C-alpha cells in the first residue's frame, strides 16, 4: 500500500495531532441530547421482549404460543422457526440468537413477543409454554473436557488434532504456536518453575444494555437503529438470517454506551427485525441488565499450565503454556489469540503454547478487550515474577534481558517490525513509582502485556462544503472519541482549523463497508483512510486551482490550507485557500470530495507495562490498590487525553477482573449473580488515580506512526496485581478473582504450611 508519506513522525511538527481539543460529540453527551440505543422511538412502536430458558441444558420438545397470541395487545411472536437456517457459518450465530432444538445455557432465548406495551409483553411471555426435557449440564472448562462429560453438540469433533478423534466431545479445536523445543530449553535452565492457574469469566460490563429499534416495511425494506461496534456486520448478519438482500436493510449506529468487544455480534437485532416483519410495525427491544449478564457475551474462563526455565543470568531458555478456555455454548473461545500472545513479549529460542477451545453450558463468549490475552499474561507474568525472585533479579531487569525487539521472531510467527517494549520497560524503571517506598502489608507488582492490533476493511468519504468546511463520513462507530481524532487528522492534512471539520458515523447505505470497531483498529485504519481521503481531496483542490490559474496541476502544491504555485516559474498567483476554491467549485468542475477504501495492514503491535501497589489486609484478605501506573507505547498519540483514557479504563477493568468480578454458577447451572449488586465492578471509591505514561515509538505502517491503544491496557493488570498481592501476602496467588476469601485461604494455607514445617 503506497502511503506517499514524507512525514517522519519522530521529527515532524504537527499542528493538531498531539493536542487536546474538545470532542465534537461532547456537548450532546453532557446535556443529555446524545441518542443512544434505547433513546430512539418511532410512531406506532411495539415493545419486544424475549423468553429465556431457565435451564442450562434442555431439549425443547415443543413451544406453545397459542395462549400468548390471544392476549390483547400481542402483535407478533417468533421462535427459531421464523429464521432462515442458511449458511453453515451463521448456524451458531442463529442458534445463539434463538435456540433451535436445545437450550444450551441459562438465559438462552427460546421465543420473543412484540406487544403494545412492556406490561403486555411481559404477561405474554408468561403465557408461552415450553416443554423442556432437562439434560445434564457442565459449566467448568476442565470438567467439560473429561470423557463422559455432558455433551453439548453431538457432532463436535475436535479440529486440528491428528488423527481426528472418532467420537464427539466438548472440545471444538486445538491450536499450537511456537518454535524450537521447550524440553531442550528446560535442560539448559538453572531454575524451572511450573504452575497452574485459573481465571473466572468476566463480563465487559458496558453500562448501556443492548438496544435496538427495528422497522420492516411491507415492501421488504428495513431500517435498524442499534448500539453496536459494527453496523455493517449487523446489516450483513441480519440480512442473511432474515433472508433479505443486504441492500434492503439500512442500519444506523446509535451513540454507543460502551462495548469493549461485547457489541461485535448480534443478539436482539435479528429478533426485533423478525418481530417487526411479522407485526408490520416498528419494534424496540432493550435488554435488561439481567439479560445482559445471562445472555450476552462474557469472556472465557480459563485453566492454564505454564512452565518457564531461566539461567541464573536471567536468560529464558524455554517456555511452555497449555491453555484451556471455555467459550460458552458454541465454539470460538479466544484461546488462539491467547496462545499466540502468551510469550509475544519475549525473544525466545524454545517456546510453545497449546490451546484448547472448549464448549460448556454458558452464554457464548464475546470478545472482551484483547480477547484471550489478559488471562494468559496473568499466568506467564506470574511465573516470570516468581523466577525473578528465585534468581534474585529485579523483575524489570529480567524482562529487559529477554525483551523482544525489532527483528525478533515472535513466538506466534511473524518477525517484529519496530516495537516499543524496551522503551516501555526503561520508562517504568525510571518512573518514581518504581522506587517509591511501600507501606505495611503492601506489595508491588509489575507485568508486561502485548496486543496485536488490527487493521481491516475501511472506507472514508470526505466532502468539501461550499463554505470551506468539511463533512467527514466514517463507517466505524465511535467507541472512545474517534470522531475527535478523525476531525483532527483531516484538519491536520487539509491545513484548516479543527472545528471546520465535522465527522459523522455514516449509516450502512451512505458509505461502503467497514469492519467492526474492534481490535484497536479505528485510530489506525480509519485514521489512515482519513489521511488518504484528505490527500485525495487535496489533489482535486490543487487541480481546481491550476484550472483557475490556467497552469498544469503538477505546478500546484498544497501548503497550510492553501493552493500555491509550486515555484516562481509556475506563475505568480496569490495562494487560494480551501474556502476560496470551495466557493467556486460549481464553476470549476462541481463538488469536491476525497475518498479512500482500503483493507489496511501494517497495524503495529503494542506493548505495555503496568505497575501496581496493593495492600492486603491479613485479617480479612481484602485487597486495595494503593497506586497504579500504566506505561504503554501508543506509536503516536493523536489525542493524548483519549489515549490516557484508554490506558486508565483498561487498567481499571483489569483491576475488577483481578479482584472482584466473576461469573458464579450454582450447582443447578444457573448464573447466581446476574446484576451489578452481586457482580461488582470497580467504583470510584475503590480506586486511586491511575497514572499514565505515553511512550511513542512510531509504527512504520502508519503515516503518523499511530498504533492501536485500546486493548493492550487490559493485558498486564491481572498479572501486575497478582504479583503485587503475592508480594504483599508472601504467598503466590494463582486463581482469579483474588477475592477476600481466596486471599485469606492462601494466607491461612501459608501459615498452616509454616506450622507443619
Amino acid at each position, binding site marked *: 500500500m503506497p502511503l506517499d508519506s514524507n512525514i517522519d513522525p519522530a521529527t515532524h511538527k504537527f499542528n493538531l495531532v498531539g493536542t487536546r481539543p474538545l470532542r465534537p460529540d461532547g456537548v450532546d453527551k453532557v446535556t443529555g441530547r446524545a441518542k443512544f440505543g434505547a433513546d430512539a422511538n418511532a410512531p406506532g412502536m411495539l415493545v419486544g421482549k424475549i423468553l429465556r430458558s431457565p435451564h442450562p441444558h434442555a431439549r425443547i420438545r415443543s413451544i406453545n404460543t397459542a395462549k400468548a397470541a390471544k392476549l390483547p395487545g400481542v402483535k407478533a411472536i417468533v421462535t427459531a422457526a421464523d429464521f432462515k437456517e442458511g449458511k453453515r457459518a451463521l448456524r451458531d450465530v442463529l442458534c445463539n440468537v434463538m435456540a433451535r432444538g436445545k437450550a444450551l445455557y441459562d438465559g438462552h432465548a427460546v421465543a420473543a413477543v412484540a406487544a403494545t406495551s412492556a406490561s403486555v409483553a411481559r404477561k405474554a411471555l408468561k403465557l408461552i409454554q415450553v416443554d423442556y426435557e432437562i439434560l445434564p449440564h457442565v459449566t467448568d472448562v476442565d470438567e467439560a473436557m473429561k470423557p463422559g462429560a455432558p455433551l453439548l453438540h453431538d457432532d463436535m469433533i475436535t479440529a486440528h488434532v491428528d488423527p481426528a478423534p472418532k467420537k464427539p466431545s466438548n472440545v471444538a479445536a486445538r491450536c499450537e504456536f511456537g518454535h524450537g523445543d521447550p524440553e531442550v530449553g528446560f535442560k539448559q535452565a538453572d531454575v524451572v518453575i511450573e504452575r497452574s492457574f485459573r481465571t473466572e469469566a468476566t463480563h465487559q460490563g458496558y453500562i448501556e444494555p443492548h438496544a435496538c429499534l427495528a422497522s420492516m416495511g411491507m415492501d421488504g425494506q428495513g431500517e435498524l437503529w442499534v448500539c453496536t461496534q459494527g453496523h455493517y456486520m449487523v446489516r450483513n448478519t441480519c440480512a442473511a438470517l432474515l433472508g433479505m438482500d443486504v441492500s434492503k436493510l439500512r442500519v444506523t449506529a446509535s451513540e454507543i454506551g460502551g462495548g469493549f468487544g461485547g457489541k461485535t455480534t448480534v443478539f436482539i437485532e435479528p429478533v426485533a427485525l423478525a418481530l417487526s416483519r411479522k407485526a408490520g410495525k416498528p419494534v424496540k427491544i432493550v435488554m435488561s*441488565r439481567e439479560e445482559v449478564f445471562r445472555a450476552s457475551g462474557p469472556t472465557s474462563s480459563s485453566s492454564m499450565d505454564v512452565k518457564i526455565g531461566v539461567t541464573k543470568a536471567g536468560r529464558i531458555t524455554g517456555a511452555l503454556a497449555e491453555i484451556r478456555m471455555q467459550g460458552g455454548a458454541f465454539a470460538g473461545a479466544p484461546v488462539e489469540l491467547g496462545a499466540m500472545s502468551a510469550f509475544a513479549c519475549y525473544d525466545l529460542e524454545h517456546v510453545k503454547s497449546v490451546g484448547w477451545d472448549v464448549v460448556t453450558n454458558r452464554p457464548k463468549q464475546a470478545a472482551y478487550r484483547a480477547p484471550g490475552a489478559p488471562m494468559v499474561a496473568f499466568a506467564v507474568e506470574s511465573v516470570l515474577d516468581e523466577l525473578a525472585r528465585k534468581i534474585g533479579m529485579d523483575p524489570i531487569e529480567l524482562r529487559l534481558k529477554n525483551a523482544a525487539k525489532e527483528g525478533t521472531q515472535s513466538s506466534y510467527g511473524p518477525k517484529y517490525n519496530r516495537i516499543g517494549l524496551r522503551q516501555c520497560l526503561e520508562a517504568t524503571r525510571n518512573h518514581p513509582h518504581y522506587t517509591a517506598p511501600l507501606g505495611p502489608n503492601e506489595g508491588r507488582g509489575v507485568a508486561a502485556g502485548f496486543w496485536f492490533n488490527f487493521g481491516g476493511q475501511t472506507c472514508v468519504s470526505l466532502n468539501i462544503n461550499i463554505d470551506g468546511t468539511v463533512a467527514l463520513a466514517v463507517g466505524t462507530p465511535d467507541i472512545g472519541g474517534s470522531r475527535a481524532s478523525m476531525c483532527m487528522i483531516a484538519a491536520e492534512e487539509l491545513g484548516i482549523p479543527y472545528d471546520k471539520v465535522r465527522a459523522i458515523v455514516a449509516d450502512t447505505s451512505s458509505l461502503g463497508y467497514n469492519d467492526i470497531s474492534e481490535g484497536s483498529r479505528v485510530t489506525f485504519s480509519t485514521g489512515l483512510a482519513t489521511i488518504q481521503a484528505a490527500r485525495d481531496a487535496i489533489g482535486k483542490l490543487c487541480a481546481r486551482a491550476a484550472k483557475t490559474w490556467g497552469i498544469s496541476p503538477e505546478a500546484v502544491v498544497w501548503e497550510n490550507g492553501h493552493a500555491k504555485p509550486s515555484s516562481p516559474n509556475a506563475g505568480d498567483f496569490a495562494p487560494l485557500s480551501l474556502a476560496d476554491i470551495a466557493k467556486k467549485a460549481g464553476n470549476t468542475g462541481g463538488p469536491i470530495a476525497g475518498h479512500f477504501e482500503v483493507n489496511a495492514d501494517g497495524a503495529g503491535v503494542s506493548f505495555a507495562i503496568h505497575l501496581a501497589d496493593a495492600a492486603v489486609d491479613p485479617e480479612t484478605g481484602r485487597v486495595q490498590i494503593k497506586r497504579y501506573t500504566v506505561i504503554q507505547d501508543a506509536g503516536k498519540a493523536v489525542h493524548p487525553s483519549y489515549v490516557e483514557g484508554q490506558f486508565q479504563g483498561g487498567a481499571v477493568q483489569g483491576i475488577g477482573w483481578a479482584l472482584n468480578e466473576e461469573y458464579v454458577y450454582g450447582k443447578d447451572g444457573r448464573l447466581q449473580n446476574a446484576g451489578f449488586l452481586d457482580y461488582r465492578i470497580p467504583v470510584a471509591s475503590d480506586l486511586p488515580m491511575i497514572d499514565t505514561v505515553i511512550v511513542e515509538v512510531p509504527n512504520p505502517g502508519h503515516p503518523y506512526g499511530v498504533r492501536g491503544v485500546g486493548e493492550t491496557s487490559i493485558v498486564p493488570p491481572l498479572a501486575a496485581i497478582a504479583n503485587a498481592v503475592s508480594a504483599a501476602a508472601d504467598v503466590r496467588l494463582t486463581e482469579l478473582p483474588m477475592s477476600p476469601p481466596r486471599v485469606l485461604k492462601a494466607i491461612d494455607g501459608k501459615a498452616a504450611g509454616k506450622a507443619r514445617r
Partner: protein
Amino acid sequence: MSTVRVSTTINGDAVAYLCEVDETLLDVLRDRLGLTGSKEGCSTGDCGACSVMLDGRVVCSCLVLGAEAEGRDIRTVEGLAAGDKLHPLQEKFLEFAALQCGVCTPGFLVAAKALLDRNPDPSETEIRFALAGNLCRCTGYDKIVRAVQSAAAELRKG
C-alpha cells in the same frame, strides 16, 4: 393496568402526565416525556445512570415510581445548563475528557452537582465516595474525579 394522573415540576416547569401505577419515574421521563438524558443501566438501583434530583436529593429514578412524583420537584441532566450556558461541571467534563462513551455522564453530572451543592470544597476521597453509586466502565474514574475537583474550584471562585 390502572393509570394515575400526576402533576409535578421538572427542571422548573410544571408538567402533568398519566402513568401506570407500577411505572418507574425513569420510564415516565424517558418514554412518556421524551427526556432520554437519564439512562437505564440496570433498573435495580446499582449503576446510577438514572440519577435525578428529587426535592434536592439524588435518587435513582429507576427506584422511584412515576406516581410518587406528585407535587415534587425533579431535576434531570437536561436542566443542568442555564439556557445556552453549560454548567461548570459540564464544561469541566468536556475539558478533562471525563467521558468516553458518555452513557454514565448524565448520572455523574447529577450526582456531582448534588455533592458540590452541599460541599463546595470536597476532598478527593469525598468525591470518590459521593460518586461511588455511579458506575463508569470506560474511564477508570480518574478524569471524572479531576473534572469534579476543577469544577468545584471554578464554582468556589463564583
